[in-house]
């Protein structure tokens, strides 16, 4: 006795663990919301705080020392190409993966080592992950059911939630009988009915067609505003992120390149990666910039800030810069035309010309033009690594 943990002791530990798990899953959502209300009086505590968050899969560093504070009631988008680590960060916050190092706080409470079912965070999955063997009402009531809410009450709440997403008519249907957009709403209702502190959305609009996607973008944004819940939205679609978000974090290679409002990210990109990934950018490398402005840093100008003079006449006004070039091609995009110009001794640039072109494409292509811009449209990009 005493040298080794006895069988009884191990049994006791297991029972104790199971008991804790049961208690947690039985805890009533209402009481948790009340508790959250008292603890979040100060605005200083962020909804989510990530510190030096790192996740390594085998040889791959998926997330590399991410520091991030997400405010209360914020619509925050994590934007980045596939493989940039944004989805892994989301899964770490949800608890599906455990970080290699670093910490995750939810409203000031360290949840780094907690299981998904112990966190007041809910997820809308990319493929929705609706339970195929359950009706819509049972799907939506699931979170309430595992918290021990009586059948009648939870069905009532699920019905209300489905009404809110305009699916009140389909209570008894199975997920397989719904369209993609309808399933998306069920997933949303299922995650929101348990009143999470933070809602995580993993590219939830990716599978929808363009029209429906634009409609859902507006609906999601309105829903978030009316509920006041923190939304963390993962997307690779920069337009989606710009449209919906209060703030955006741009991810690249497992780290965050820039955090800011849509306006800041678009108008003042913090580096070459962000300038290229968010919208279209005309980038002048350090040498080309040196030739124009005498400063050896790369710079970027948005296509809509460039003007094309078809006569080849440079602008003489002060505070503007002009460069001659040759038109190489046109792309008509409806509200404007993208004109590609190869600048003499400079990069190939794209200018967005909203007015009608002074001739047919065949007449203008290969013609000499002058491209001008206001000097305050120039964004200097810090060289990588500084």
């Amino acid at each position, binding site marked *: 006795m005493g040298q080794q943990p006895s069988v009884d002791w191990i049994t006791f530990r297991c029972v104790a663990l199971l008991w804790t798990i049961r208690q947690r*899953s039985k805890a009533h959502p209402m009481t948790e919301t009340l508790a959250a209300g008292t603890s979040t009086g100060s605005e200083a505590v962020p909804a989510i705080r990530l510190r030096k968050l790192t996740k390594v899969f085998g040889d791959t560093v998926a997330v590399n020392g991410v520091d991030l504070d997400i405010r209360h009631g914020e619509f925050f988008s994590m934007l980045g190409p596939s493989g940039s680590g944004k989805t892994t960060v989301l899964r770490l916050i949800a608890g*599906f993966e455990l970080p290699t190092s670093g910490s995750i706080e939810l409203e000031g409470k360290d949840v780094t080592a907690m*299981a998904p079912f112990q966190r007041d965070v809910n997820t809308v999955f990319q493929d929705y*992950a609706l339970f195929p063997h359950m009706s819509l009402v049972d799907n939506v009531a699931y979170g309430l059911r595992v918290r021990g809410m009586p059948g009648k009450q939870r069905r009532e709440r699920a019905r209300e939630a489905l009404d809110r997403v305009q699916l009140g008519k389909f209570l008894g249907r199975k997920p397989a009988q719904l369209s993609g957009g309808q399933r998306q709403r069920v997933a949303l209702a299922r*995650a929101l009915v348990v009143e999470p502190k933070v809602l995580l959305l993993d590219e939830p609009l990716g599978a929808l067609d363009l029209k429906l996607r634009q409609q859902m973008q507006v609906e999601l944004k309105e829903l978030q505003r009316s509920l006041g819940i923190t939304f963390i939205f993962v997307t690779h679609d920069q337009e989606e992120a710009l449209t919906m978000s209060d703030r955006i974090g741009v991810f690249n290679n497992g780290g965050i390149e820039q955090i800011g409002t849509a306006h800041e990210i678009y108008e003042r990109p913090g580096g070459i990666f962000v300038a290229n990934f968010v919208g279209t950018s005309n980038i002048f490398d350090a040498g080309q910039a040196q030739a124009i402005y005498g400063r050896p840093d790369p710079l970027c100008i948005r296509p809509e800030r460039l003007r094309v003079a078809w006569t080849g006449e440079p602008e003489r006004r002060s505070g503007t810069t002009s460069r001659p070039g040759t038109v190489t091609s046109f792309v008509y995009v409806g509200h404007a035309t993208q004109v590609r110009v190869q600048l003499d001794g400079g990069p190939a640039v794209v200018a967005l010309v909203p007015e009608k072109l002074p001739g047919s494409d065949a007449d203008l292509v290969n013609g000499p033009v002058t491209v001008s811009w206001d000097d305050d449209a120039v964004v200097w990009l810090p060289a990588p690594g500084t």
Partner: protein
Amino acid sequence: MRLSRSAKVVLGIITALVLLFIYTPLLLVVVNSFNADRTFGWPPKGFTLDWWVKAFDSPGVREAVVSSLWVAVVSTIISLVLGTLLAISLQRYEFFGRDVINLLVILPIALPGVVTGIALNNMFTTILGVPLSLWTVVIAHATFCMVTVFNNAIARLRRTSAGLEEASADLGAGVFTTFGLVTFPQLRSALLAGGLLAFALSFDEIIVTTFTIGAGETTLPIWILQNLFRPNQAPVVNVVAVVLIVVSIVPIWLAQRLSGDSVRVSGARVKADGR
């Protein structure tokens, strides 16, 4: 591929011959269990239910039926529990030695029964010092019955997304609640099919049983073996054989229907998702 008319005819005839060769002897056993002639003269001179009555009156046969059923039921239950646990651990979790365990689990069904039988016999009698009984038969059967459950369960798990279990955990369900409300309902028909196969496998097993059964005990196949060459028991052996055929075929037929259905259902689901 299009087949010519003559190719179709030839293939049809070959198929018919093969099936005939397999099922005629079985049919013969069924007919003979009603044959009035004790020496099975062919064609039968008359039909009788005497052998069936005799079989049901025989305490040896009744005991053997009960033993076989008991062994099959218990080993099926053990297989269901262990097979499901194995399938979940090997399909849903990454751990050291996973591939090795996968192979080791499937191996018993490929191993010759004689080898399994001798090995288990040695282990029970010499190493563990456990007297052979029906329980030792149950354990021996469970080693390979488990594989059918495991195969069915793991195939189903591969087709169902682990995302469902994540969604359940995300909504606040613990490990056991998730299994009960999400994983098990997805597995149910696969487990039924695997369980029925396991039952059929155990019910008519003879080789491993021979090596692991206790001295005073008999299962149905063992009873047949013991009475096969006693001339006055021959008609009753036929009856027992028919019972074995029925009890083995029905679960397999059911299992095939069940897994066929589930394939169709999930196929439709994939189609719906593809829109």
